[in-house]
């Protein structure tokens, strides 16, 4: 009997029924990342929804609309990427839609008015994104270990988008800034930077 035959026997003896709980092992780190980042933002920052009375729900709706779209769509893409043999091109390409919408709104915004830029809190915003994005990115990386990604760069990129999306979701209620230019520069660019880092680090972090 060859080594390969004995390995086949050993594997077969364990049966084909998958161990339970792999879905939970995927979802839990993502939820924990969201809760931890939101908790950190709430614990450190003051003045959530401070400008709600003066501006109404518009600004936070746009910010959360964008960030929650990423937070909800990225795990679907990660789930697909973690299943070998599944085509993921469209699932990942769809993640560009929120960015394209921001670009469209930015063009509209710039043509209509010129909001003050960069505002007074951009440094706090960048700091929050720089701290929270890697935390949530780590959660996505841990989640992916429950699956079997075979395109590690693409999986790393989507994990980065999730990380950035979670960071923005957590910080947005504390952000008094308005305007699409601000959103493009201080939210979208950091998110894309995190995605780029994920693309680069994916092959090292996601090997299995």
């Amino acid at each position, binding site marked *: 009997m060859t080594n390969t035959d004995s*390995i086949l026997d050993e594997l077969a003896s364990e049966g084909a029924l*998958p161990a339970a709980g792999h879905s939970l092992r995927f979802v839990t780190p993502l939820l924990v990342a969201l809760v931890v980042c939101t908790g950190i933002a709430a614990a450190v920052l003051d003045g959530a929804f401070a400008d709600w009375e003066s501006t109404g729900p518009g600004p936070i709706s746009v910010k959360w609309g964008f960030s929650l779209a990423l937070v909800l769509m990225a795990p679907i893409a990660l789930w697909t990427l973690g*299943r*070998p*043999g*599944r085509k993921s091109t469209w699932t990942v390409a769809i993640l560009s839609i929120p960015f394209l919408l921001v670009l469209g709104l930015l063009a509209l915004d710039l043509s209509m008015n010129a909001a003050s830029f960069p505002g007074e809190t951009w440094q706090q915003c960048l700091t929050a994104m720089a701290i929270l994005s890697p935390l949530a990115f780590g959660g996505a990386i841990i989640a992916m270990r429950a699956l079997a990604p075979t395109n590690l760069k693409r999986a790393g990129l989507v994990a980065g988008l999730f990380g950035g999306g979670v960071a923005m979701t957590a910080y947005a209620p504390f952000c008094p800034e308005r305007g699409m230019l601000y959103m493009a520069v201080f939210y979208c660019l950091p998110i894309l930077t995190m995605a780029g880092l994920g693309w680069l680090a994916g092959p090292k972090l996601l090997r299995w």
Partner: protein
Amino acid sequence: MGRTDDHKPASSGALDRLMAASREGDRKAYRQFLAEASRRIRSMLARKVGADSELEDVLQECLIALHTKRHTLDPGRPVGPWMYAIANYKLIDHWRKRGRSPLVLDDDADMDVAADNFAEMDVEGLLDELPEAQAEAIRLTHIEGLTNREASERIGIGHSAMKLRVHRGMLRLKEIVDEKDQ
């Protein structure tokens, strides 16, 4: 050498049926599934991996990966794309870990092949069965004892080209010897 798939291939749905039965608790079906997967992956790897010992290493990694990641195959989805995606991933990962190109251009490895396989054989007779360029490369490096660099300088080709000729020649020789043994 196992470089060609001379088994009659099972029907495309055979893997799917075996996996479906396996998931209902039939361990015998799972053993059959793994054996069939092993045969198909071996056939795929044989076209891409040089040495047999290396092929077995990658094959075993693939089989373990199929087993440990079996929860990533959704019920009802075809097994083939899933299985080959994992096998391809493991092959690329193997090459990455090894840090070399897919072809093994290793002088020592080629010398080992000669020592293990061609002892007590009519080497000149075997060399006659090779293309002249490969036979000449092996004569220079394995019979006259020149290094690849010395041999490449003597016949005026690049060092890498010489290594490639020697490598391909040695692989072909091993195939010929294996065919004669069978």
